[in-house]
């Protein structure tokens, strides 16, 4: 990279971080976490509190037929996963894994499936109308066959 390109890249980075107008766009476009499902599913809206319950293994029904929802863990972006655990589940990763294991040992069912690949995750979502996962809003918008069922967190 030439010195001129490097300075231009640095300027853009600082501008997106510090300038109020540009920063707001970045915050609205990038740092908003949403819960998504397949566009064809009949899942209703879900609160962040119910999302927390769902990902901790508590059966949560959000369909007219009262079928329980299936949470899927999005591990394709480590920052997203960490933010989800801290801002929505309110647990460290170790504490979260332990809580899921204790629930499974008690007979509370399987732990949520974890996906390292976003493509595989979306395939699983589209194959199961009761499945939901969390994504950054801009990533969710990139998949036209997904719909947002909850707004989970937004960076201030």
């Amino acid at each position: 990279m030439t010195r001129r390109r490097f300075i231009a890249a640095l300027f853009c980075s600082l501008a997106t971080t510090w300038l109020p107008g540009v920063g707001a766009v970045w915050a609205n476009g990038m740092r908003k976490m949403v819960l998504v499902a397949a566009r064809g599913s009949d899942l209703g809206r879900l609160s962040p509190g119910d999302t927390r319950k769902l990902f901790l293994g508590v059966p949560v029904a959000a369909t007219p037929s009262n079928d329980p929802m299936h949470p899927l863990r999005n591990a394709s972006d480590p920052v997203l996963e960490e933010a989800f655990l801290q801002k929505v589940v309110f647990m460290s990763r170790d504490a979260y894994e332990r809580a899921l294991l204790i629930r499974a040992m008690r007979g509370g069912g399987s732990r949520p499936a974890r996906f390292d690949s976003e493509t595989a995750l979306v395939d699983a979502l589209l194959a199961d109308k009761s499945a939901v996962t969390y994504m950054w809003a801009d990533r969710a918008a990139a998949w036209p066959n997904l719909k947002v069922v909850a707004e989970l967190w937004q960076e201030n």
Partner: protein
Amino acid sequence: MPICHTVKPSVRVLAVALVLCAAPLNTYAESRSEWLFFPAVTAVHRTGLPQGDELERNHIEPVLDVLGTGGLSSMTWLAEIFVSEHEQELARLNVGWRLNPQNTLSIGKFHNLQGYWNTQFNHGAYLQTAIDKPGVVDDSAPLPLHYVGAQMEGKLVQWGEGLLNYSLGIGKGAVMKNGLVSPDIVGAGKLGDLSLGLRLSYTPDETSPTQAGVFFARNKIPVENSNWTGITQDVGGLFANWESDPFRVIAELYVFSNKLEGSGAMASGNFLYGYVQGEYRFSPRSTALIRMEETGGTNNDPLLALIPDFELNKQLIGLRYDVTWNQAVKIEASHVERLDTSYRQVQIQWSAVFP
């Protein structure tokens, strides 16, 4: 001898069948199933044991607990197989139907519904902070730990975020034969008599580990190789688990009432058992613990005379260090009093969960 060679053929066949049945289910997005492996290796050193005691002075014991869970639509299943050098057990195997969002009916083999420890950890060494289980859920416990039958469980009442949960079980329990032997549903099949249990627990939040409750159980236990032919046992008690990081307290109280019959004779006895365990997490990966177990009113109790290995009193201190999110190393020192002797022991354990 490798552990896999000591497993009963019936348990081996069942384990393979379960894995084969569960595997295809994974190919459908609507079904969920997974297998968890809980290995542990414990080294024990004991002092003060009398000559000829069944317990070894120095011993290393590897164990493996395999837990399978899954579901399809409103149906769920669970299987747990525990293997050690001395024991191979199909600890749990049950299938449940979610009747509605509040209630589930299951049939199969279950943990008995008493207390906290027996329903939370049982064989999952990695999940419990301590190495040693409390005496009341150990192999030499004075009450059945499993039953085969039906279990109904769910939510009874909800107050805001708080929940009152219930579990109700009925089935066939253990047989007394050199200690209580859990019922089997594969192999030769040793089923005891009626076992009834009710457990009520309150939790301030459905996702909170904090809970408190009561339990009641009635067990009719056939006796083999003794002048006694049967035991009628009523057990009631209280339990609580309180967690507020970095502190945790687990406490249980059991009230036993036993009636033994045989050869025209009858004897009865009552005793109390309780323990308190306190934990303090002094760094993100390190936890210190202390536990006191006490039994009272055991003078000449006819049931305990049949189980001299029962640990009446125990004082225990320990440390746990979580090496990674799924592996822990623990060290513990304890003083144990049984009906027939007392001894001291030091234990070191590595435990883990995979995957």
